[in-house]
């Protein structure tokens, strides 16, 4: 059974200082609620929102949270409560919040937990301030929002995880380093052996080419013979000289590598170019910081926080719809800038790998240094300095990017120091070679040393590449797998999202055209734009257009927003068969209001609708159109003493007085006046007491004194048997009750005073009210000879001289 609302009771929450009860009857009827702006209607929506979502979005956005939920005049020792009674009693629950802002539900059953979890995914209320929110979102945000509405958060989460994991692994510094090292090793192989060596047989072939001229009698065919050949060279050579020669070769290679790496700064250069591009126009970066402000401003204008056409910042007059359009465009522009920043971030990964390769080569040169030779002192000093400087450069690059500060290629480092190092290396390399050559006294020795050095390099590079290639292979398998899974998932996500968009589009188009027939806007569709966005497309006088802001007026945009909400309700609400529309029709002109009500009649008759408005004219229109469909109607008002309250029935006003007295509150003058006023209205209505005509709301605002006076005149005229009853005089002369507001009357000093007035009112009511059927005597039930008026059951009667 779908869930509907039977009763909502709010006490001590937001504007409701005293219990505010909305009774939708056991039939869970739709209801229209009227209240002036600032009259506290939204407390009802706030209460419902908090009940389901544990937050009140418009309050939270203002950085006020739980502390703003309790009514400020509500006693600290009592919990503020939102009580929801549903058509299914099992899931009815109170939600309370204590003065220490701890909240809890009274219903702890699994049924209720399941209900709450499902309801959290449904669209239960729409406020005026939220109508345009979706339409004005950027394409990307519309996609995210649609995913949220559809309940595809789980899909979004998985997609985001796959996309970021995929990007991250491709930017993984270890992955980039492995790739870089393999490339470097391959370059070394090409340089020294004129070929790439990836298989063992290729390794042994090259080893044999080195060993054969030495005539050491070993054929290299496997690992063991490779090792033997090197040992044999060692045993047939001067060990010390061979060791020195090897060390010099290592140092020489490290310096050569360092020089090569210092020449390879392309990735770093490319990053700096992209980075300077986004920093060049400093305004761009500043604008990113404006994103949040613009979004808040957009919301403030939509919510008309400072009035319909007033700038929320400078309070000057603005054209709100025009400003909103400009703001939406600026937010779109900011998203593009953010994308550019993201791309630069990717380049930063390669740049850092670039710098780390240089740093790694410099560090290797420092490790292989030979500090026992005075010829090497200069380069050792340069290397040491560069090693430290590279660390700082890497750190600086990361930090400045993070802070979006200007970052330039340091000329002292990349020109002066690098040039000095390269110059020194260029001068030193031949000298090192000379030193190596000098160690070999004969050509045979020279060949031996060279072959030994090359065999060592060969073995090292081959083994290193073998390990690195395996690591790279695993990385690439993971990347390939992750990419395929991500692409498959994105494809599925696009398909299911478009299916959902198609499903919702049909209803949006139908609803919109029911409200705005033949106005030239047709075929409204929500379409996926690329991978990243969703946009509302429509035919405008036969031509396909988007976005809605392009041609639709504010009123039509609002209508579109409402249709989107209603279509979402139809499509996605599985558990609840009710929804709340909080002042959403404000911008509709009268031509579109009745079609809107007809839409509710035709398409949402099986739903329970709670429609709140501050427009009296609209409220009366709803009343006229919807009462025939069983809608209930309530007025809401607000006062500083009592917070918000419904224009109450006699029974609820009595309850309220009793409730206040139980709390020791003697400030009930207003309530007593309202109670008497309600009773008088009922009595006067039933006895057709005539009062002077007044326009509109004034007609409702009849003072007790006026009603009582006219009633007494009527009773006199009809020679009613109670016309001289003392209670009528007592009430008529009570200044506490006949004044328009309680402010004008003297306060009650004791509970006894109050009880006396209560007694008078009860006595007055009992003159007209039947205890048996609970109805007032009425001209509707006059007796046959025409001398008496009775209640419905006939138990209560009054003499009445009919003309």
């Amino acid at each position, binding site marked *: 059974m779908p869930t509907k609302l039977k009763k909502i009771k709010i006490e001590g929450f937001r504007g409701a200082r005293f219990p505010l009860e909305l009774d939708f009857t056991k039939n869970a009827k739709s209801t229209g609620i009227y209240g002036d702006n600032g009259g506290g209607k939204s407390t009802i929506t706030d209460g419902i929102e908090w009940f389901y979502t544990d937050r009140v979005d418009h309050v939270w956005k203002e950085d006020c949270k739980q502390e703003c939920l309790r009514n400020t005049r509500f006693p600290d020792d009592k919990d503020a409560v939102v009580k929801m009674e549903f058509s299914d009693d099992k899931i009815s629950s109170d939600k309370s919040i204590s003065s220490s802002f701890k909240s809890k539900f009274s219903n702890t059953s699994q049924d209720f937990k399941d209900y709450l979890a499902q309801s959290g995914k449904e669209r239960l209320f729409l406020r005026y301030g939220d109508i345009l929110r979706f339409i004005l979102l950027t394409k990307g945000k519309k996609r995210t929002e649609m*995913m949220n509405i*559809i309940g595809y958060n789980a899909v979004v989460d*998985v997609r985001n*995880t796959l996309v970021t994991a995929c990007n991250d692994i491709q930017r993984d510094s270890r992955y980039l380093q492995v790739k870089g090292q393999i490339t470097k090793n391959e370059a070394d192989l090409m340089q020294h052996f004129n070929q790439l060596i990836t298989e063992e047989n290729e390794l042994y072939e090259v080893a044999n080419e080195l060993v054969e001229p030495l005539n050491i009698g070993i054929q290299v065919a496997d690992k063991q013979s490779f090792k033997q050949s090197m040992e044999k060279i060692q045993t047939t050579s001067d060990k010390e000289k061979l060791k020195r020669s090897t060390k010099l070769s290592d140092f020489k290679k490290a310096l050569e590598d360092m020089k090569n790496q210092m020449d390879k700064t392309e990735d770093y250069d490319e990053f700096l170019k992209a980075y300077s591009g986004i920093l060049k126009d400093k305004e761009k970066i500043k604008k990113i910081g404006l994103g949040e402000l613009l979004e808040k401003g957009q919301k403030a204008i939509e919510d008309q926080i400072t009035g319909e056409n007033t700038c929320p910042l400078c309070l000057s007059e603005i054209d709100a719809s025009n400003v909103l359009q400009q703001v939406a465009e600026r937010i779109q522009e900011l998203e593009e800038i953010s994308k550019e920043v993201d791309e630069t971030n990717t380049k930063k990964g390669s740049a850092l790998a670039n710098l780390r390769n240089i740093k790694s080569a410099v560090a290797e040169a420092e490790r292989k240094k030979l500090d026992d030779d005075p010829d090497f002192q200069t380069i050792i000093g340069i290397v040491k300095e560069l090693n430290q400087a590279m660390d700082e450069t890497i750190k600086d690059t990361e930090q400045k990017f993070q802070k979006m500060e200007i970052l330039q290629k340091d000329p002292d480092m990349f020109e002066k120091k690098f040039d000095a190092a390269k110059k020194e290396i260029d001068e030193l390399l031949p000298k090192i070679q000379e030193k190596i050559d000098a160690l070999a006294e004969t050509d045979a020795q020279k060949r031996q040393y060279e072959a030994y050095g090359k065999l060592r390099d060969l073995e090292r590079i081959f083994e290193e590449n073998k390990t690195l290639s395996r690591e790279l292979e*695993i990385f690439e398998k*993971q990347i*390939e797998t992750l990419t395929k*899974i991500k692409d498959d998932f994105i494809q599925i996500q696009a398909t299911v999202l478009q299916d959902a968009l198609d499903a919702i589009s049909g209803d949006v188009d139908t609803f919109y055209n029911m409200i705005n027939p033949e106005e030239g806007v047709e075929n409204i569709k929500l379409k996926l734009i690329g991978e990243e966005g969703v946009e509302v497309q429509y035919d405008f006088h036969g031509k396909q257009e988007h976005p809605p802001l392009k041609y639709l007026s504010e009123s039509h945009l609002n209508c579109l927003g409402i249709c989107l909400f209603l279509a979402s309700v139809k*499509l996605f609400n599985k558990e609840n068969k009710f929804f709340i529309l909080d002042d959403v029709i404000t911008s509709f002109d009268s031509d579109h209001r009745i079609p809107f009500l007809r839409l509710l009649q035709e398409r949402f008759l099986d739903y329970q609708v709670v429609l709140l408005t501050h427009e009296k004219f609209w409220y009366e229109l709803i009343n006229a159109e919807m009462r025939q469909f069983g809608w209930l109607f309530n007025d809401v008002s607000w006062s500083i003493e009592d917070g918000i309250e419904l224009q109450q029935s006699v029974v609820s006003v009595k309850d309220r007085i009793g409730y206040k007295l139980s709390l020791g509150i003697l400030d009930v003058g207003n309530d007593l006046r309202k109670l008497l006023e309600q009773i008088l209205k009922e009595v006067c209505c039933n006895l057709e007491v005539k009062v002077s005509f007044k326009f509109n709301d004034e007609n409702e605002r009849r003072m007790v004194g006026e009603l009582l006076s006219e009633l007494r005149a009527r009773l006199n005229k009809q020679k009613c048997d109670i016309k001289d009853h003392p209670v009528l005089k007592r009430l008529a002369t009570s200044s506490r009750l006949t004044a328009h507001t309680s402010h004008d009357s003297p306060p009650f000093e004791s509970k006894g005073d109050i009880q006396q007035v209560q007694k008078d009112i009860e006595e007055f009511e009992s003159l007209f009210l039947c205890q048996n059927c609970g109805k007032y005597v009425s001209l509707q039930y006059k007796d046959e000879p025409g001398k008496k008026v009775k209640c419905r059951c006939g138990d209560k009667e009054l003499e009445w001289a009919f003309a």
Partner: protein
Amino acid sequence: MSEKSIKPGEEIVNEFFERLRDENGLDEKTRDALYKLYKQGIFRKTQVKKALDEIRGEALGEEDAD
């Protein structure tokens, strides 16, 4: 009355991961690790990175041991 119905997001994701288990042509260890993280309810970027790092570490460790 709207007759359309939309499959819940959780169901879409679940079906995807169940189908993934039988998917050939993927790196099995990566595929299985992602499936496991999803089933454990910790399918997050940092967990995926950690799992992939571990797979590489184990694979290279095994080879070293060989």
